[in-house]
């Protein structure tokens, strides 16, 4: 299990605005395809997967990835949030605005999680088995 938390120093916010164009291009390339139900599917294990936290919600609320995928949560909200799954598999520290948290999902399964600061905020990661190499 690999978990990473990165703190964005607040001083860097202006720099981040200038860097936003490049970042957006990266994000667009990496964005998972959204289904009508707002569920996202990340097909290849190598593809980075991300969940955005804003307005006290996780987007997408349900993200499907293949085993081995690293999912990164980014807090774009004005309030801190903290990721914790129902079964205690992964838990972040409190994420301030612009902080991120990553977790690599090794095994298949369903991982319902909440914000442990605001337990009414719920999300789910569905991990499918990785396809055998052909």
């Amino acid at each position: 299990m690999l978990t990473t938390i990165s703190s964005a120093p607040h001083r860097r916010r202006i720099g981040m605005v200038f860097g936003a164009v490049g970042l957006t291009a990266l994000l667009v390339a990496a964005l998972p395809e959204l289904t009508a139900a707002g569920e996202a599917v990340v097909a290849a294990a190598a593809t980075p997967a991300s969940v955005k936290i804003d307005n006290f919600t996780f987007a997408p609320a349900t993200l499907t990835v293949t085993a081995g995928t690293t999912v990164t949560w980014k807090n774009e909200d004005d309030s801190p949030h903290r990721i914790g799954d129902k079964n205690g598999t992964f838990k972040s520290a409190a994420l301030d605005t612009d902080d991120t948290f990553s977790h690599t999902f090794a095994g298949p399964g369903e991982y319902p999680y909440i914000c442990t600061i605001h337990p009414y905020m719920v999300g789910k990661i569905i991990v499918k088995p990785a396809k055998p190499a052909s």
Partner: protein
Amino acid sequence: MADRDEKELSGAANINRRGLLKCMTWAGTGVVWTLSGGVPRTLGLIGGAAAAEAPQGELTFVQISDSHIGFHLPPNPDPRATLTEAIDKIKGMPTQPAFLIHTGDISHLSKEEEWDVADQVIKSANKQVFYIPGEHDVADAENGKAYLARYGKNTNGKGWYSFDMAGVHFIGLINVFEFQPGFKSAGLAKIGDEQLEWLEKDVAGRSASAPIVLMAHLPLWTIYEQWGWGTADAGRALGYLKRFGSVTVLNGHIHQVIQKVEGNVTFHTAASTAFPQPAPGTAPAPGPMKEVPAGELHKYLGIRTVNYVRGKGAPALIDSTLVA
């Protein structure tokens, strides 16, 4: 039941004109709230009232809440400054409070340096302070270990405690360690079985005429389920307190004053000293009201004075804003 409510409340409300004027002078500057027939109403802004006729209650204390030291965004990039203003306001009160209570979210991110700042500012009031944690104070990687090491000395379980002051029994409940996740039911705070059992024992055998003050960070009644503004097992806690003549519940968390009366229990949430949050359901999310202009911020921030007079039952509460 209605008659009973009115009878109990008349003690708290002090509704006659003389009492009201006394309250107003006592408050100095700010918004004065009173309870009238069970319905809280605001009496408006008062400026520069003289303090000569301050009523001498048997016990006066002040509640501050949600100082969020470490918050750095609009509408308040400097919550240290506004906490300092709140403390200065307390220092200037004509009737000095016996002590202070802080109903949680001292810090924004459970960092020692945030608590250092809060402690430094608050200690200038030169008062004893009773703390309970908010969820922002137990958000460290070790689930509240840092808060308990710093503020939880001589407490029970995970930080809960009680004490008596001038015949009033104070209970510091903690509802930020356990919660009911929002998977299938409402995502709400919880007090938890261990603490509830302690509470039952703590109040057992006490005289029903002893006034009770129940402090907890999240509201002990469900104000707005969609935003998690409630405590799933609050009913059990209140059940243990049913027989008491006067129960006053003081909460923080929602950064605004909302009050409710239910039988002998009055519920009061408090203003923050840092930033306001929207009224229930009036915004997409309960985050800081970042649109509040700097010149308006102080109208939303405040402190609360609580005054007990022996034999009067429920206390008189005065919420004052930080408007100079």
